[in-house]
């Protein structure tokens, strides 16, 4: 039986180049993998919180919101001086959001550096107000301002009527809560039904003298 084998005269050059480049590529990837420990962007515990963008209302005017300014990348676990962030995703027309709004006002006052009875770090509350795609949930900046005033909230409200932040954070429904460490890493989210936002703050933040 006569075998018919074809000979590729160029295979040597291609194979040798492929081997060289693949080796260089994997050496570079290995160096990066051993010297860096990247943290994914996301809303699960241990991930870096996504950005929150838009105009925010602070009680007097609407101005560009700078979410990054709340974080300190040099913060270390156990450091009491770092300020934590409680992120609330809500809709002014959502009945559950209305029910929990009074609690939020209490929490913001309780977990504050201004409360002498609180021995933990200051927690900055931020609300991102959206407009859910449900009939009768039409919203506006004026409605957000009224809602904030009605419940005595002193924290900023970000205009997310276009749902950009909600989409980015993958929020399935409102209200949704997140507790974020001073270095921007998500410490707890309300998918964990075992505790409330207040419970998470009490349990996860460092305390003076603890």
């Amino acid at each position, binding site marked *: 039986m006569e075998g018919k084998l074809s000979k590729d*005269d*160029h295979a*040597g*050059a*291609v194979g*040798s*180049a*492929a081997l*060289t*480049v693949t080796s*260089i*590529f994997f050496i*570079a990837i290995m*160096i*990066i993998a051993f*010297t*860096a*420990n*990247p*943290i*994914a*962007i996301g809303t699960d515990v241990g991930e*870096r919180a*996504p*950005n929150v963008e838009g105009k925010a209302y602070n009680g007097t005017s609407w101005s560009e919101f700078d979410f990054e300014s709340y974080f300190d*990348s*040099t*913060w270390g676990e156990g450091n009491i001086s770092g300020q934590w962030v409680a992120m609330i995703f809500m809709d002014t027309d959502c009945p559950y959001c209305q029910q929990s709004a009074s609690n939020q006002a209490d929490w913001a006052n309780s977990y504050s550096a201004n409360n002498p009875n609180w021995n933990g770090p200051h927690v900055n509350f931020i609300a991102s107000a959206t407009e859910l795609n449900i009939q009768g949930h039409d919203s506006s900046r004026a409605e957000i301002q009224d809602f904030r005033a009605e419940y005595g909230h002193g924290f900023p409200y970000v205009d997310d009527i276009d749902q950009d932040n909600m989409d980015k954070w993958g929020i399935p429904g409102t209200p949704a809560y997140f507790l974020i460490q001073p*270095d*921007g*890493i998500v410490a707890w989210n309300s998918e964990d039904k075992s505790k409330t936002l207040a419970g998470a703050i009490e349990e996860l933040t460092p305390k003076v003298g603890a």
Partner: protein
Amino acid sequence: MLDNLLIAVYLIPTLFGLFLLSPMGRSTADSLSSRYEILSTVRGQITTGLQIITFFGFAVSAQTFWITSKISEGGNFCTSSTVFSCDDLLGNNDLNVDPFFGMSWGLIGMMVNAFLLFMILVIKNDPNGEYTQRFIQLGTLITGAGILVILLLISYEIEEGKICLYCTTAHIANVAALVGFLRLRKLHDDNAAWKASSAK
């Protein structure tokens, strides 16, 4: 200070590669040809220049990918209050990935430069092979498309009011590689010049 020195490590060889593959690099190639025989031909001069450019383009892309990874840990590498602050761009989660697949620009740069390097090595080792023409065209197309990506990334820099020097070095490498592929294409069209055993 250290990060500026590190940029020079990538930028100087890239610029040397560009110089080498240009017509002005002929005298340098001649002076080195006694040691590196491949430089005695124009084809060897251009492929060697391209090899240097794509290798350092790959290296600087790997460096930007590493910086992006370190920043995501919470660290910083080249934070500066001046306009030259790569951390502000490489650490921006909205801008440091491509808009379609969310892949880091640094990783994309590594893959593209690795593929360009692969094609250059094949052309260099087997200049009359069946892949030569295809790879020259593909290299021209990829680096040409790279110009559009560079324009997008420059628009990010303008938007943020910051310049990332590592990214700029990678952009220079892409432009230099495009110049090299265009020169290689022109040379390949001239059959006699392509097959010449020495530069005239």
